[in-house]
C-alpha cells in the first residue's frame, strides 16, 4: 500500500509540474499578445491622430519605418523583460520542484530499501540484508527498522564479508550486461596495470612533490601527524587537497571537470597519497594521469561498502591497510597485487609524547571506554565486565566518554543499555563524560582501556590508551576473527572472548598489584613496535622509492 501511495505522489508531482509549465506558456503567450495588441492599437490611434492633423497618407507611410522601428524596439524590450522575469520564475519553480521531487524520491528510495531489507531478512539472505543495513544507516540515520532484523543483519555484517555479496552482484551485472560489472572492472584494471608498467613514473631526482588528498577537513584526522613529520623531510615538498570541494563544487565552473587549482596540484605532484578508499577517492583516482605514483590508504569502514571493488587497482602503486585483518578481508575478494599494486600493513601514526602524562591516584580500578555512543563499541559488554568486577570488589568504576547516541536504528539497544546503567550512574560506579578533544588528559583518570567493539580497524583510542600507560583489555573482535584476528595489533595485551575472562584477568592483576607494571610493559613494547619514526621511515621509503 505504501508503495502505491508513494507512486501516486510521485505521479501527482510530475502532473502538477507539467500543468504549471503548460500554464506558464499559455500565460506568457496571452501576456505578449495583449501587449502587442495594445501597441498596435496605439499605432492605429496615432495614425488617426496624424490624419486629423491633416497629414497625407503618403507622409504618414514615410514616417512609418521610424514608428515601426520604435514599435519593434518596444516589443523587443518587452519580450526581453518578460523573458528575464520568466527565467526568474522558472529558476525558482525549478528549485522548488527539485526539492519536492527529491523529497518524494528520497522517501520512495527509503521505503524501497526498507522493503528490500525486510524481504532479505525474511528469505534468510543475511548477506544482502547486511549490505542494505549499511546503506540505510549511512543515508537514513533516523530510519526505524525492526531491532531483531537489525541485530541479525549486524551480526552477519561483522562476521561475514559483505564484499563477497557486492562482488556477486557485480558478477551478475556482467552476465546481464548492466553497469558497473565485474568483467569490465577487471579488464580496465588489467589495462591500467599494463600502462603503469610502460609509463615511467619515477623521476631521476631526489626531490619528490607529494600531494596528500582527502575528503572534507575532518577526514585529514589520521593524516595530520604524517603531514607534520613530512614537512620536516627536506627531500619531500608537500601540498594537500580537499577533494570534497571538487566532487561537489559549490559554484558552477565552466569548461572544466575540476578547477584549475586542483589540476595544477595534480600536475605538480610526483606522488599522490589518497586517504580513505571510498567512492570519491575512486572518482578522483580516475582523474589522475597514469604517470603519477598513487598510494591509497584503506582504513576500515570502507570494507562495508562496495567501493574497494570499484577502484582501478591497476592505477594504484601502493595500498596501505591499517591492519592485517582488513587487508585479509579485502584480499578475500579482490587481489590488488594481481594488478601490480603492492600492499602493505602500516598502522596509523600518532605522536606518543602527547599521551605521556602521569596517572592520577587510584586509577587502577577504573575502566575506560571511548566513543560509547555507537552500538559498535558495545558499551553493554563494558557494563557486563563492570558488573563482574563489582562482584569481586565494589571499588571498580567504568568511565565512558563520547557523544551521546543519535542513530535511531540503535535506539532500542541504547534504551536497554541506559536502563541497565541507571543504578550504576546513581551509585557513581559508572561515569559518562561528554566528548572532549583532550583525550590525553582524560586518560590520566583511567587505568584500564577497554575495547569491546564488534568491528574495528585498529581501535585508535585503545592504542592511545596504551600509549598513556593504561593496561588494555581487548575483545577478540568478531570482525577480525576469521581474518587473522586482532592479536597482531596488540601482541602484549590481554585478548578476551568473554567478559568473565576479562574480569578474572583484571582482578588478578589488581590483587597482585601488577597493574602498573603491566601498563608500563605494554606502553614500552608499543613504543618500540609502533614508534612514529619507524612507521614514518616505511612511509617515506614508499614515497621516495
Amino acid at each position, binding site marked *: 500500500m505504501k508503495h502505491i501511495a508513494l507512486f501516486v505522489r510521485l505521479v501527482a508531482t510530475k502532473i502538477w509540474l507539467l500543468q504549471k509549465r503548460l500554464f506558464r506558456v499559455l500565460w506568457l503567450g496571452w501576456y505578449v499578445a495583449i501587449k502587442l495588441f495594445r501597441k498596435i492599437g496605439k499605432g492605429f490611434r496615432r495614425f488617426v491622430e496624424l490624419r486629423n492633423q491633416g497629414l497625407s497618407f503618403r507622409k504618414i507611410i514615410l514616417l512609418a519605418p521610424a514608428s515601426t522601428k520604435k514599435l519593434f524596439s518596444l516589443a523587443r524590450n518587452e519580450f526581453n523583460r518578460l523573458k528575464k522575469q520568466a527565467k526568474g520564475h522558472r529558476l525558482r519553480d525549478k528549485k522548488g520542484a527539485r526539492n519536492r521531487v527529491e523529497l518524494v524520491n528520497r522517501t520512495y528510495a527509503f521505503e524501497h530499501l526498507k522493503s528490500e531489507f525486510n524481504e532479505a531478512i525474511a528469505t534468510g539472505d543475511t548477506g544482502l540484508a547486511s549490505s542494505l543495513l549499511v546503506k540505510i544507516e549511512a543515508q537514513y540515520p533516523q530510519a526505524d527498522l525492526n531491532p531483531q532484523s537489525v541485530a541479525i543483519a549486524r551480526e552477519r555484517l561483522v562476521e561475514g564479508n559483505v564484499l563477497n555479496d557486492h562482488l556477486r552482484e557485480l558478477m551478475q551485472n556482467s552476465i546481464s550486461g548492466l553497469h558497473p560489472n565485474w568483467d569490465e572492472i577487471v579488464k580496465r584494471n588489467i589495462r591500467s596495470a599494463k600502462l603503469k608498467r610502460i609509463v615511467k613514473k619515477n623521476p631521476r631526482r631526489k626531490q619528490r612533490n607529494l600531494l596528500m588528498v582527502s575528503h572534507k*577537513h575532518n577526514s585529514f584526522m589520521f593524516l595530520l601527524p604524517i603531514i607534520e613529520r613530512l614537512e620536516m623531510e627536506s627531500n619531500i615538498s608537500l*601540498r*594537500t587537497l580537499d577533494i570534497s570541494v571538487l566532487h561537489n563544487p559549490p559554484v558552477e565552473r565552466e569548461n*572544466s571537470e575540476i578547477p584549475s587549482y586542483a589540476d595544477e596540484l595534480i600536475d605538480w605532484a610526483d606522488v599522490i597519497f589518497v586517504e580513505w578508499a571510498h567512492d570519491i577517492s575512486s572518482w578522483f583516482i580516475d582523474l589522475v594521469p597514469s604517470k603519477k605514483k598513487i598510494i591509497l590508504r584503506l582504513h576500515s569502514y570502507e570494507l562495508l561498502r562496495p567501493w574497494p571493488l570499484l577502484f582501478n587497482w591497476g592505477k594504484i602503486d601502493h595500498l596501505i591497510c591499517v591492519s592485517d585483518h582488513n587487508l585479509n578481508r579485502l584480499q578475500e575478494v579482490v587481489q590488488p597485487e594481481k594488478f601490480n599494486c603492492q600492499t602493505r600493513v602500516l598502522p596509523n601514526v600518532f605522536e606518543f609524547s602527547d599521551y605521556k602524562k602521569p596517572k592520577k591516584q587510584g586509577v587502577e580500578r577504573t575502566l575506560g571506554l571511548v566513543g560509547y555512543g555507537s552500538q559498535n563499541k558495545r558499551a553493554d559488554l563494558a557494563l557486563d565486565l563492570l558488573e563482574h568486577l563489582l562482584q569481586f570488589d565494589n571499588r571498580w568504576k567504568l568511565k565512558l566518554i563520547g557523544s551521546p547516541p543519535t542513530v535511531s536504528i540503535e535506539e532500542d539497544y541504547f534504551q536497554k543499555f541506559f536502563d541497565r546503567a541507571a543504578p550504576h550512574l546513581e551509585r557513581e560506579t559508572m561515569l559518562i563524560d561528554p566528548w572532549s*578533544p583532550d583525550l590525553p588528559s582524560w586518560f590520566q583518570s583511567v587505568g584500564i582501556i577497554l575495547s569491546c567493539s564488534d568491528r574495528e580497524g585498529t581501535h585508535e583510542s585503545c592504542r592511545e590508551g596504551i600509549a598513556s600507560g593504561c593496561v588494555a583489555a581487548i575483545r577478540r573482535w568478531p570482525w577480525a576473527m576469521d581474518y587473522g584476528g586482532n592479536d597482531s595489533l596488540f601482541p602484549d595485551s590481554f585478548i578476551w572472548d568473554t567478559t568473565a575472562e576479562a574480569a578474572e584477568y583484571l582482578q588478578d592483576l589488581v590483587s597482585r598489584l601488577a597493574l602498573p607494571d603491566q601498563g608500563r610493559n605494554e606502553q614500552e613494547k608499543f613504543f618500540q613496535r609502533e614508534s612514529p619514526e619507524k612507521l614514518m621511515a616505511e612511509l617515506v621509503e614508499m614515497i621516495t622509492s
Partner: protein
Amino acid sequence: MSAHKAERLKIFTALGEQKDLSASRGDVLNEIETYRKLSSFADVYYNGQLLQWEEQGFGIVPQEVELPDEAFDLYYCRNAPKLYQECKGPLLIMAYPYDPDIWEMVDGVVVTTYAWKNLLDNYNERSNKLKLYDDPWYPDSIFKPRHITVFGQSITPKFTVQDNGKISKLYRAAFGEGFSVGYLGRIDPTCYPHQVIAAIKEIRKVDNRISLTFMGHIREVVIPGWIQIYARQTLEMMPHVVSAFDCLIYDQDLTGDYLGSVKCLEAMARGVPILVRPYEARIEQFGEDYPLYYQNEQEAEYLLVKLKDDRNFRSSIREYLLERRPYYSRENAELRLQVEVLEFLNIV
C-alpha cells in the same frame, strides 16, 4: 529624563519584522550580540519579551512586532519604521537605511564606529573624494541626526577561547597547506578583492605554495579557477577556520570608510594577519601603525611576500593584533556601550 536609576534600565528592542531571533543571518547575529552587551547593564526586551540568554531561543515566543503598552527607558529599533510613529521614546534607530522623515522624528541614530559618527556629524561638509562616491546608504545631503550613539562592535568570546589547534590544523590541511590566504564572507562586486587576487596571481608565478581560498556566498562575480572555493562552515567552526589561514584579506568599496567589520575583529581575535585598505573605520580598528594596509596591487604583493617569507614579520603582526584584542573584548565593549547609552539618556 534621568538615567541615574537605582534599578536596571529597561530597553525595548526590535529588528525589522522579525518575530523572534531564530534566523542565523548576519544582521540578526550582530543585533543579538548588541542585545547581549546591553544586557550587561539593562533588562533587554525583544518585542516586549525579556531576553533570557540561557533559555532556548532566548525565551522568546514568536509574535508580531508591535509596541507594548508598558513604558521603557529606551527604545532601540532597527529597520522597524512602523513602530517609530507611536513610540514614546527616547528612541534610537540604526543609522541605515536612511529616511529623512524618520531621522527627523527619532531622538538619535546608532552607528558601529566612531568613523561613522564623524561622517554623519560632518556629512554635508564631507570631502570631495567622498562626495564623488555614490554612497549606497546616504544621498548627497542628509538630515543631521539629533544624537549619534556608537554601539561599538566586539569580539565574540568563542573567538578568544584557547584550544589545542587540532581543528585548525585539519582545516589548514583542507585548504592546501603551503601559505594559505583566505577571504571569508560574502563576495560580490562591491567587495571582490581584485587587487589582492592580481597580487597573489603574480606571486604564484614564482611560488605555487601560496594559495587563495574563498569561503562565503558568491554573488554576481565569476571566480577564476585557480582560486579554491570552500563550502561555508558552521558558526561554531569559524574560529578554527580563521586560525587555519596564514593571512586573510578584507576588501570593501568606499563604505569601508565608516562601516565596521566584525570579520576584521575576528581575525584580530585569532591573531591572524589581515590585509585591509586604510579606510577610516579600519584605521579605527587596527590603529595608524598597522603594517598591513594596502592601496594597490603592488603594495598587496609586497606585504604578502613579506608575510610569506619573513616569519618574524608574521609573528610581530600576530603580537600587534593580540595586543589590540582586549579593547574589543565583549566586557570592554559593554562598558563603552553603557557610557554611550547613559550619555544619550541624559541628553534626551
